[in-house]
C-alpha cells in the first residue's frame, strides 16, 4: 500500500530522504519543497471550492497577476542559490517557498477550464489580494503542523498529497479537452471527464516509469 504512494510520487519528486519530513517514523513520499507546493495546491483548491469560486472565469487584474507570478521567484531563487552552494537552506524555508508558489496553480488551471470565449466572463476567481493572503496563511499553518508532526498520520498525509497532484492533472486535462471538444453536449461531456481521469492516472504512472528508466540509463 505504501509502495503505491512512493511509486506515484517518484515521477514528480526526487525523494531524497535528507530533504523529506518524517511522520510516524517514515519519510513522506515527497521532498520538503514538493510537499509545500502540493499543500499549497490542496489549500487553494479547497478555498476556491468553499468560497464558491469553482466555476469562476474572470481573469485577475494586472496588479494581482503580477503579485501571483512574483510569488514564484522565492522558490526559484532558493533553488538556484542552494544548488550553486551560495547559501544553505533548510526544510522550513523549502516548504514555505513551496506553499507560496503552489497556491497560485489552481487559479490559473481553473481559469483555463472555465474561460469561455463567446460570453462575457463575469464570475471572479480571485477578487483581491486579501483572499490570496488567506490562502497563504492557511498553507503556512498547515505546513507548521507538518514540520512539528502534530496529529497527522502518514497515510492521511500521503493520500492528501497524491490526491492533490492527481486533482491538478485532472483539472488541467479537462481544460485542454474542453478546448478540443467544445461542440459536445452535456451528455457526451461525461465521457470527456472519464477520459481526463484516465489520462491523468496514465500520465503519473508514465512519468514514474520514465524517471526509473532515466536513472537506470545513467
Amino acid at each position, binding site marked *: 500500500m505504501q509502495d503505491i504512494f512512493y511509486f506515484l510520487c517518484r515521477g514528480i519528486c526526487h525523494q531524497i530522504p535528507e530533504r523529506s519530513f518524517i511522520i510516524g517514523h517514515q519519510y513522506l513520499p515527497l521532498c520538503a519543497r514538493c510537499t509545500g507546493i502540493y499543500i499549497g495546491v490542496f489549500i487553494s483548491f479547497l478555498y476556491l471550492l468553499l468560497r464558491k469560486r469553482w466555476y469562476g472565469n474572470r481573469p485577475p487584474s494586472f496588479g494581482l497577476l503580477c503579485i501571483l*507570478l512574483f510569488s514564484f521567484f522565492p522558490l526559484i531563487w532558493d*533553488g538556484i542559490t542552494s544548488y550553486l552552494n551560495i547559501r544553505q537552506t533548510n526544510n522550513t524555508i523549502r516548504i514555505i517557498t513551496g506553499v507560496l508558489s503552489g497556491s497560485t496553480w489552481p487559479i490559473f488551471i481553473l481559469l483555463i477550464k472555465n474561460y469561455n470565449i463567446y460570453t462575457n466572463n463575469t464570475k471572479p476567481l480571485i477578487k483581491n489580494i486579501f483572499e490570496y493572503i488567506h490562502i497563504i496563511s492557511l498553507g503556512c499553518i498547515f505546513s507548521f503542523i507538518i514540520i512539528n508532526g502534530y496529529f497527522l498520520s502518514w497515510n492521511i498525509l500521503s493520500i492528501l498529497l497524491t490526491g492533490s497532484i492527481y486533482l491538478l492533472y485532472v483539472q488541467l486535462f479537462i481544460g485542454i479537452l474542453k478546448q478540443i471538444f467544445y461542440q459536445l453536449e452535456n451528455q457526451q461531456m461525461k465521457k470527456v471527464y472519464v477520459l481526463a481521469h484516465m489520462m491523468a492516472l496514465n500520465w503519473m504512472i508514465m512519468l514514474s516509469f520514465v524517471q526509473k528508466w532515466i536513472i537506470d540509463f545513467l
Partner: protein
Amino acid sequence: MRFCRNCGKLLEDNQSYCSFCGKMVDTEKEVEIISSEDNSLTSFQKETSQPYKSMITHHIVPPLNNWIKVLLSIMVPVIPGLGALIGIIVGILFMTKEDKDRKTFGKALLTISIIFILLFCSCAFIFYFAMQEMITEYHFY
C-alpha cells in the same frame, strides 16, 4: 436580435435551433449585447423610450499581428521557465480583451505556458540527477 449562445452566430427571430451548430436556443433568455457606449447616451436618446440596449455597434479592432503570435508561442518552449511566466502574463492580458482573436490566442498561450512550466518543474530534478552523476563520474570539481 438574438445570438446563439454556443457559436455566437446571428439567429432569426423564430428559430428554436441554431442553424450553424444545431444547439437549442433558449427562447426566454435573450442574449443582449450591451455596447460600451451605453454610458455616454445623449439626452435625446435618454428621452426616447426606444430600447437602446439591443443596438449593436461593431468595434473594428484589427486582428493580432501574426509575427507577434509566432514570437510569443516560440518564446514559451525556448526560454525555460521565464518564457512560460511571461506567457502566462501575456495570455491573461489578452484574455481580458473583447476581441475574439485575442481571446482565443490568449487562452491557447496560457494553456501551453502552463503545460511547459509543469514539464519544466518535473524535468528539473531529472537534470539534477544527471548533473550529480556526471560530477561523480568525471570529477569536474
